[in-house]
């Protein structure tokens, strides 16, 4: 075994599974999002927990991505301010989930897109419920394969729910239990995680479908230009004014 070859081959299979099985869910979610945008509602993105925080970051002010959206980044639910603290402690405090939602301008009619590979931590579950209480429609990207197989009440919300169960629409990112794809005889630990990559590419599969639909529908489709190219930041200014300060992470 080489490592990279087996890992990438495994990933290819899983990516193909996303492409070939999640079409209907992606289309349905994309229709919902496109409709909400058309009606002037906000679309929020959140990755509650550890590596999940990359979820929102990857659609934050990125060229080729939707501009008028609110990718939510929270200092507690992020590895940037202390990974051990976040994964072992903070993401198990449900009230933080509520605080994160309440510190964002979420209105009835908005869409909340929550991405969590494992879909179980208390912050994720409580936050998802809170967003629905605030009137948002919940689209999720998560893997029931993982949440259903996890047998540890200590790491779940007290209500025992998994993210996909709360969703109005769920897109299955195909993350296998236990996320790890490689093993070698004699070594006790599996390795080669695929969770973050599958979550991110499933998210991109969704956003590209939304943009495609919006372009087909006609009219202006607010998408960021590359800030590194000449004229990029100046072009993006027109959207900055519209999205400030709702998109706090900007």
């Amino acid at each position, binding site marked *: 075994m080489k490592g990279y070859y087996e890992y990438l081959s495994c990933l290819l299979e899983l990516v193909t599974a996303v492409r070939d099985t999640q079409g209907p869910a992606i289309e349905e979610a994309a229709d919902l999002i496109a409709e909400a945008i058309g009606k002037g509602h906000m679309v929020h993105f959140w990755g509650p927990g550890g590596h999940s925080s990359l979820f929102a970051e990857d659609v934050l002010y990125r060229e080729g991505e939707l501009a008028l959206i609110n990718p939510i980044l929270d200092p507690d639910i992020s590895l940037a301010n202390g990974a051990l603290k976040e994964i072992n402690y903070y993401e198990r405090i449900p009230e933080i989930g509520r605080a994160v939602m309440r*510190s*964002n*301008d979420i209105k009835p009619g908005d869409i909340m897109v929550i991405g969590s590979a494992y879909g179980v931590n208390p912050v994720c579950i409580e936050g998802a419920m809170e967003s629905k209480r605030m009137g948002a429609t919940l689209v999720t990207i998560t893997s029931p394969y993982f949440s259903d197989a996890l047998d540890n009440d200590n790491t779940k919300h007290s209500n025992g729910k998994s993210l996909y169960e709360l969703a109005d629409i769920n897109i299955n990112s195909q993350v296998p239990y236990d996320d790890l794809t490689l093993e070698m005889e004699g070594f006790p630990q599996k390795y080669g995680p695929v969770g973050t990559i599958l979550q991110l590419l499933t998210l991109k599969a969704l956003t590209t479908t939304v943009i495609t639909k919006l372009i087909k529908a006609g009219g202006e489709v607010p998408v960021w230009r590359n800030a590194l190219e000449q004229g990029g930041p100046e072009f993006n200014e027109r959207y900055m004014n519209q999205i*400030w*300060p*709702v998109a*706090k992470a900007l």
Partner: protein
Amino acid sequence: MSKEISGYKEGIKNLLDLIAGEEEAIQQAADVIARAVKDDKMVHVIGPGGHSNMAVEEVLWRAGGLLMWNAILDAGTNLIHGAKRSNLIERTPGYAISVLDAYRVGQQPGEVMIIVNAYGINPMTIDTAEECRRRGVTTIAVTSSSFAKLVPAGHKARHPSGKNLYEIVDIYIDNHLPEGDAIVTVEGMDTKTGSTSTFCNCFAMNCISIETVKRMLELGITPPVIMSANMPGGDEHNKAIEDKYIGRIKHLM
């Protein structure tokens, strides 16, 4: 009380007296701020440098404080992200421009900026004052001249131009920072202890707030003063005031 604590206490009391004595400058600032609020213009407050950030935090969403301050709390100079790192950032010429851009300062005419920096010499502070001036933003500084005189030109803590904050702003409120910041000598130690700059900065900001409340009443506007969220009835009292500002002040929510 030990003689050192007593000395510290007397020193702080003396500084507060001196700052309170800056009545003319404080009232001038209060007038500018009250008028800006009356005209619905943004009033920003920034502490460009490590501990200076505390003066901005002091007035953000504080019980008994005014709510309309647009607190600029830059992560790069905040001590929580590394105290020594913060020092490197505050010494980066040009950095302030990005911060002002990120907080969209000077987008409208008639905006006001309070710059709190007791020492008044670091590159971020000087750039903030000059860039605000370029953008037509009225500048009010809470600063002093003691470090201006102490730190020679060309010192690495200074802006390349060697300018001092108190000299380049529209209104200068002297917070009387003692030379070296610390005022207590302990026998057996050459280096002084007992820091004063946070007291000076925060006291000055609260004095400005008080005089601004008075001036607002004189101008016929209701000062947006909030109650503690911990008091019974606090949240309810604050809601109407908060609703007005929540969409405009980045760090309020």
